């Protein structure tokens, strides 16, 4: 069975290019451009992975990950960010984040990671 992934990032071009790339490579992928939309999708569907940017227009990605824990929603978590902030990484690790991915991101790198972890 193929993996099901949610990409959360406010840059629509980033989302669409990544979503298409992963879909073309056998990973069922959806995307959201805000924390609010992401929460709604995560609350109503089952995903194997959420790949979330830390900088979102309405909330930080890390806060969405905390919300997932509060809601007891089980999903593998990958956090994206341009900056390697020690505090954020520690917080993400505490919230059970599987990997931290630094931007810029090559779609093939994320595909390899998902296949490795999945």
């Amino acid at each position, binding site marked *: 069975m193929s993996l099901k992934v949610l990409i959360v*990032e406010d*840059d*629509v*071009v*980033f989302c*669409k*290019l*990544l979503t*298409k790339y992963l879909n*073309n490579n056998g990973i069922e992928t959806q995307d959201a451009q805000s924390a609010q939309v992401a929460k709604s999708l995560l609350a109503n569907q089952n995903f194997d992975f959420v790949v979330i940017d830390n900088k979102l227009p309405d909330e930080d990605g890390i806060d969405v990950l905390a919300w997932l824990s509060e809601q007891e929603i089980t999903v593998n978590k990958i956090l994206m960010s*341009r900056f390697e902030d020690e505090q954020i990484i520690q917080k993400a690790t505490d919230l059970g984040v599987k990997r931290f991915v630094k*931007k*810029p*991101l*090559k*779609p093939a790198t994320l595909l390899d990671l998902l296949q490795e972890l999945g």
Partner: protein
Amino acid sequence: MKLSITDNVHLVEPGDFEPSEHWYPRVLNSNIHPLVSHFLYLSNEQYIERYCRLNPEANPEAIAKILNYKPKYFKWSGTDMMHITNQLGNKKLTVIETNSCPSGQKSMPLLNLNVEKGGYKRLIEETFLPAVNAHKETGKLAVIYDKNPMENVGYASTLADAFNEDVLLAKFEKDDPNPPAKFIDNKLHIRNEEEEWEPIRAAFRYVTQIPWSRIPVGSKTLLLNPIEACLAGGRNKSEAYGAYQAFNEEFKEDGISINTPKTFLDVRLGELPTYFEKMGKSMVIKVPDSNAGQGVYTITSETELNKAMTELQQNPPEDTYLIQQLIYSNYIKGASKKDSWYHVGTIPDKKNRSYAFDLRLMMSSTNEGIRPLAIYSRRARLPLNQPLPEGADSWELYGTNLSVKQMEGWSYDDERLMLYDIRNFANMGLGIDELISGFIQSAMATYAIDQNAIKKFEK
């Protein structure tokens, strides 16, 4: 491809072009209509010969001058036209507007199935590449945009392949407090992966929202199109109308003219009711620098006039508007049989519904002169041969723009897009002679705006 090398900038690499990402799904599975394909393969000489046979007053040398013209500023354009008729049965295509960042590639079926990049490749390789190669600046290549990412990623990846080098794809929005692009000493720079300003030698430009607020006149970076094309009429309807009038004056002895609805410029808000009466209680109000169907109001009643005026009151009081004759849905009894124009409309469907539609023709400057590049149509939401439902806005009857304000161009009003493919083309009732006339109208409009740019910025 490297996504997000910095905020709102992606790095597009050679080999990144993915056909399924740059056309609407419906278009990917369509086949161009043979008549349209035939039209697009005709030479400029064939267009002239045919047009002059059917329009014997037209001077072939004047048309050759226009079709063989090499625009200095306006090298890539898209004209929106309406197919209209009068009670005497005279049909024509009339120019509604000419756009300096026209969308259209994603709506155009492939002309040659073996060329998977279609019109993206033709525009980049036949128009942009020769200009860049002749331009002496140094730096990287870029695509800057504020809309339509589906096409702009396509242009960036086509550009990367054509030059075999990486291309920076940067979103350059008008309200971005920290944009990833800026002009330093009139040269475009884009923020790179190291957060430094990277000089750009040439950029494909799809910046549509008040672009003059961040793109200077006299850019050292080669831009397709430069801002001069916008300021001379490619993004200002009043300037464009002035350019068309100057064109019609220049060519009045040559039997050709740019067709436009009757137009009044520089009308103040308070004067709108007077024009409403003067135009026979129907008109179109346009905000001169609006686009994508925004800032355009079709007025057929006092209620609609009041509604439009309430919205326009939000604009600065010194703003003026362009007023145009409304192209009617049907002939209105008692109106002039010669001067009252109405939509030809689509061929009636099985339920006998006929719709107003426009025709978007994109063209570019090549070694062979101005050449057509892409073509498609959009129809209105409600049929023009049935009464408008009570309370419905007349825009539903006349408005053809497909823009849906969500997902930044990854979404559109699919059912109203009319492809020039085997399945849909016949519904427009257009023949090859209308396409030729439409192309010549479009080329004339492009010539007129480019000449206006030369006049404005060089003389």
